[in-house]
């Protein structure tokens, strides 16, 4: 397992009861790459992302994030996670939510960083508004701000474009392009093949818990996003 890989996954298994949700998954993601993690519903994408994010443990196998354990404190300091849920508190304002996570991520000036990200996501005018009063799009932009708040080196995004409004998609795409230009690593699971493949440098396809394909994103995939499923996935 090369210690220099941003993410190194070796022989990972995960069981839910007797059912193997992940079966002997092994691959590496190098720093600065953007990996699109593809697969049908229930293939195991979210399970794998949760293990990478330190939210769940593999039954067998090893995961190293920048050479360290996923649950190590300094590893988590360098990971930004955007899951299915937006991960922000309804009873707090947008500013209070970001300030809370800025403190948890030990950012030196939580106030300034929170205000900066409220502005970058276009939420500065509603900074003091409670999240429970926000529209869906505003909540999603706040979730994006929470994910990027601490300048993570590795971004783990689970279905990041699902149910985003146009403005939030634009915000997220711009942020991801900027993050990749800065050499950060991105792993995103998605069903929105076209948006994901436009950003991706690499692709991994999971089929019923097994790694069915791992390689670079090719022009062929970009022109015909369904190609990968037809060749390596289920019909």
């Amino acid at each position, binding site marked *: 397992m090369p210690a220099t890989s941003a993410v190194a996954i070796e022989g990972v298994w995960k069981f839910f009861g007797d059912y193997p949700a992940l079966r002997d998954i092994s691959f590496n993601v190098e720093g600065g790459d953007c990996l699109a993690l593809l697969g049908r519903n229930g293939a195991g994408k979210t399970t794998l992302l949760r293990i990478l994010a330190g939210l769940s443990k593999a039954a067998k196998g090893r995961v190293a994030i920048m050479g360290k354990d996923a649950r190590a404190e300094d590893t988590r300091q360098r990971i930004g996670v955007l899951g299915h849920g937006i991960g922000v508190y309804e*009873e707090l304002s947008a500013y209070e939510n970001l300030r809370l996570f800025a403190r948890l991520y030990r950012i030196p000036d939580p106030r300034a960083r929170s205000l900066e990200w409220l502005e970058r996501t276009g939420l500065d005018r509603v900074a003091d508004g409670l999240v429970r009063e926000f529209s869906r799009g505003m909540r999603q932009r706040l979730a994006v701000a929470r994910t990027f708040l601490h300048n993570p080196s590795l971004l783990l995004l689970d279905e990041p474009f699902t149910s985003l409004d146009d403005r939030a998609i634009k915000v997220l795409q711009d942020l991801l392009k900027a993050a990749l230009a800065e050499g950060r690593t991105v792993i995103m699971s998605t069903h929105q093949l076209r948006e994901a493949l436009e950003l991706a440098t690499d692709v991994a396809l999971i089929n019923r818990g097994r790694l069915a394909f791992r390689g670079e994103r090719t022009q062929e995939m970009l022109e015909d996003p369904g190609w990968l499923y037809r060749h390596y996935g289920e019909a």
Partner: protein
Amino acid sequence: MNFLRQAWAVAAKDLRSEVRSKETVNASLSFALVILLLFSFAFDPDAEQVRQISGGLLWLVFAFAGTLILNRSFARELVNDCLDALIASPATGAQIFFGKCVANYTLLVAVECVCLPIFAVFYNVKLPQRIALLFLVMLLGTWGITVIGTLFSAMTVNLRLRELMLPTLIYPMLIPALIGAIQLSTVLLGNDPLGTENQIWFRLLVVFDLIFTALALTLVEIVLVG
């Protein structure tokens, strides 16, 4: 210092959310007041009976009302998958747990501080001359309830029947602490002398709190992540 700073961020978040929503304090307080009111009509006790049952009655109310607060402690993190966001942050399980304990403890003590004078009025009990000692018993007993309740709240957070499971699991664990708190409260509320034979209950409460705080801080990472 870093441990406390992270824990305080979690505690402050929980307290701020509760101040805005009042979802658990209102439920807990109204439940406690209803029990106190109903028991005062049910028993109609004379002074001697009150002297004998006061400690038990008080802690029965505290334990039942406390469960309502503790039940929501981790359950409120399920909205928008906030628990995942917390666990994914660099805050350790112990820091998240301790922060939640501080918030729950503050809410429980606040409810108890409202209930105590109402209890005194309903049951015609004179608050003891040694009220500082009674308050100390309340603080020690409540910390025991808080630590056990918060840990089991984390353990049951993903269960469908968590509202039923939490009381079922925590009350047996709390028996030693509750016995100690009841014995001491009965003596203090009756203005009886606190002899050396009762001091063991103080020691029991302190040891119970220390042991279960240490155990919970050690185990909570496994509880939260597996």
